[in-house]
């Protein structure tokens, strides 16, 4: 008999390794769900027509995980969510790489979209992670200044 090696995927995760989108989706798998909405944030090659070379994400790990947990709980209280998973990358990211993945499964599709959109909007406001954009001729901490 073959042994199946089952790798448990955490629902809330902060990592320096590339995010495996399919694992995040698998983490919200549920037979009670008819809909899954998945948001994937990727590194664009430009910001306001300025060419981006790479990004660097820094996190206050312990608090970021706590805020991501709180966010997941908030989403579960507001919508009939089967499962939610939030994975965020940190460290140096090249163009095209995945910075964040949020997957939400719900019985029906309307709630999946609403819950997922709320989750990414709120994550960007509350989770202590900081993004530095590196251009060819400079760098900025995004949103730091008015």
């Amino acid at each position: 008999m073959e042994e199946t090696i089952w790798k448990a995927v955490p629902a809330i995760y902060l990592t320096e390794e590339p995010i495996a989108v399919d694992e995040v989706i698998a983490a919200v798998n549920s037979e009670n769900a008819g809909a899954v909405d998945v948001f994937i944030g990727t590194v664009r090659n430009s910001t306001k027509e300025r060419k981006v070379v790479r990004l660097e994400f820094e996190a206050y790990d312990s608090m970021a995980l706590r805020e991501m947990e709180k966010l997941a709980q908030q989403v579960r209280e507001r919508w009939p969510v089967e499962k939610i998973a939030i994975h965020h990358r940190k460290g140096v990211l090249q163009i095209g790489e995945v910075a964040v993945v949020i997957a939400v499964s719900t019985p029906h599709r309307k709630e999946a979209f609403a819950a997922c959109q709320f989750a990414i909007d709120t994550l960007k406001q509350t989770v202590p992670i900081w993004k530095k954009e590196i251009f060819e001729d400079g760098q900025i901490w995004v949103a730091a200044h008015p």
Partner: protein
Amino acid sequence: MKLNILMFGITKDIIGQSKLAFELPDRSTVPDLIASLKAKYPALKDLSSMMIAVNNEYGQKDQTLQESDEVALIPPVSGG
């Protein structure tokens, strides 16, 4: 009391270190700390916002700080 304040993102660049030992009167509050930091490091005033985290939670208005607290300076977040 002496706080060891964790710095992230642009605040680390402004202050020049990732952990700042900072002297503050006993029973100081979150707004007291923000005011003291801005007084000592005027570049912090230019940020869009600045929050204090106490023990991994956003600090409440008028929350009193203790030397044993894990305190962090939270400039505008930009994850996602």
